[in-house]
């Protein structure tokens, strides 16, 4: 789960991390007042769950309260389109207005989970304010990587070492190390998946400060952080993905595909997507209905696939286990009836009550091509997409 920058800033502040003075505004007038409080000079930043805001016009430096209001007016209520958003962009409902900081140096520090180290990994660099992936690709030696100990966490001496290696001035190594240690505490105590400060700045008056902050959280651990879960902003998500998420389905919309996929199991779902490709088409989505889905959940999954306007055909691949194929078939029929779709379906059903399920689909009069395995599915899909039929 992602949160907005202003929310991340508040979490960091509660952990003693130095951040610029800032406030959040929902109207141009609120933005004006915030800028006034900072003496007029400020930065106005659109609050969206996406990077690349600067180039997209979502970050504006202003030198008067009026300019702040104007900048806010230009963002609020509009959609911001960056290279990280979906094509229509994401809505801006709030802007953050922050005091300007006189920057002496821009650094980078982030913490992610590292599967090989089996522990949180601190990545830091002297090259702040840039796209860190480019830095990693072009000048990998400018990235310092230090794993926290899985049981005792990031040692203060490691934090100090990182601060020295990325070029924090010697007199500021101690506060910088404390800041890095506190980021690691946020990561661990809040079950974060990412804590990224870009840039971490050294100011001209000798402070170390998190100028921009991005924090993501592990969905699986939100149950123990209700205060974090409450920060979710569903509007920032793709509408179909949000609907699927609310229904407890693992669904990912894929741009430009025309074959909807409905599968149980993540691995089999990826395999099914790959199979559509061999049939000459792109998958429109990833969808795992999970192990023990009931009829109405299957129906909801089917409706989500159908309501994707890119989808022309649906590939159903279910392996009955805990999931019973007859139950799944009834769900599909329910979903088809609810949506009134006549879309062609290619269906592979194996395992528990597979024949019963296929019979239910046949009896319902849907446009179904039944196949026995993945290979046949690819062939059938090619036929369906080229206008052939069963």
């Amino acid at each position, binding site marked *: 789960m992602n949160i907005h920058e202003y929310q991340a800033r508040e979490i960091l502040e509660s952990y003693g991390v130095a951040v610029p003075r800032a406030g959040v505004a929902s109207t141009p007038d609120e933005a004006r007042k915030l800028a006034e409080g900072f003496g007029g000079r400020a930065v106005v930043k659109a609050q969206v769950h996406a990077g690349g805001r600067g180039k997209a016009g979502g970050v504006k430096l202003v030198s008067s309260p009026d300019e702040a209001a104007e900048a806010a007016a230009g963002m609020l209520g509009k959609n911001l389109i960056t290279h990280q958003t979906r094509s229509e962009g994401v809505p801006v409902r709030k802007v953050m207005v922050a005091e300007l900081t006189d920057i002496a140096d821009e650094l980078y520090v982030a913490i992610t989970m590292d*599967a090989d180290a*089996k522990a949180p990994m601190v990545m830091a660099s002297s090259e702040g304010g840039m796209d860190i992936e480019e830095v990693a690709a072009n000048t990998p030696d400018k990235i310092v990587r230090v794993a926290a100990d899985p049981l005792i966490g990031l040692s203060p001496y490691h934090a100090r070492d990182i601060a020295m290696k990325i070029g924090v001035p010697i007199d500021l190594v101690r506060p910088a190390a404390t800041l890095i240690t506190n980021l690691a505490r946020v990561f661990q105590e809040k079950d974060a998946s990412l804590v990224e400060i870009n840039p971490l700045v050294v100011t001209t008056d000798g402070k170390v400060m998190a100028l921009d902050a991005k924090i993501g959280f592990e969905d699986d*651990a939100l149950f123990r952080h209700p205060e974090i879960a409450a920060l979710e902003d569903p509007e920032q998500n793709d509408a179909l993905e949000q609907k699927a998420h609310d229904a407890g389905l693992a669904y990912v919309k894929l741009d430009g595909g025309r074959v909807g996929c409905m599968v149980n199991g993540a691995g089999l779902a990826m395999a099914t*997507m*790959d199979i559509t490709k061999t049939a000459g088409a792109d998958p429109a989505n990833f969808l795992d209905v999970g192990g*023990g889905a009931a009829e109405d959940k299957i129906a909801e999954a089917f409706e989500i696939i159908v309501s994707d306007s890119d989808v022309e055909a649906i590939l159903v691949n279910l392996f009955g286990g805990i999931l019973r194929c007859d139950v799944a078939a009834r769900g599909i029929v329910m979903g088809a009836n609810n949506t009134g779709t006549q879309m062609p379906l290619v269906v592979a059903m194996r395992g528990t009550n597979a024949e019963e399920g296929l019979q239910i689909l046949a009896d319902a009069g849907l446009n179904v091509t039944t196949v026995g395995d993945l290979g046949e599915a690819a062939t059938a899909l090619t036929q369906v997409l080229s206008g052939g039929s069963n």
Partner: protein
Amino acid sequence: MGILIDENTRLLVQGLGRDGSFQASRCRAYGTNMVAGVHPRRGGTMFEDEVPIFETVADAVAATGANVGLIFVPASGAADAIIEQVDAGLPLVVCISEGVPVQDMVTTLAYIEDKPTRLLGPNCPGLIRPSTKGKIGIIPGNILSEGRVGVVSRSGTLTYEAVVQLTELGIGQSTCVGIGGDPLHGTTFVDVLEMFENDDETDAIVMIGEIGGTKEQQAAEYIKNHVTKPVVGAIVGQTAPPGKRMGHAGAIITGKAALASEKIRILEEAGVHVAESPAVIGAKMAEVLGR
């Protein structure tokens, strides 16, 4: 010989809720010797009138000599259940639970590192060995046939797909192991590859990987240096976009190494016979075995 379980396997199942009870029942039906259940509020009662239920794992192990633990508890309590089973000295612990917080696994994996317990999972389908009628987990027993191909996979249902393909081509399986879809898990590809390499009941290996992480690379390295038996590989997620999680917590492309194409390239360099699509895993194995 075989791997992980044998005729002396004595299964303990922790977490006898709806799903856990259903699956424990299936394990028994397959022929597995389940000797104990654990449920704090049902201690002193019996599971299916035949298997005693205990309040704690330690009590269950002491009373029954259980030597394999299987966990179905909800994700929020899964790490604690693993630690309870490790502390009780179970040599093999299989955790099916999906959605275990990754920080819990950081702690748990570090805790068990120097303990004598092997952990399989979490978020895995477990393992099954047709020759001894041993099933520890949720892999459907009816799709397997006894034979000499070992299967190891990060995925559940995709494993079933591969097993069905093998079985339909008359190629039986020695043991089938799901290592799970989480980024931080216990037993790895390398661990299972080593077991299959040393297993006199296994002649060839199917290894099914996916996007995300670098575990397939580590497997390739190991295969190149240590595995003499033929390996058929498959990597799914070629059509997955970067930065999006494909269901499995670990299935996300975060860099070049996480790409399916990259993993396929490295596996092929290591001498693995990579199936062109997930539909032809069985066919590839038949080809490799010269059938």
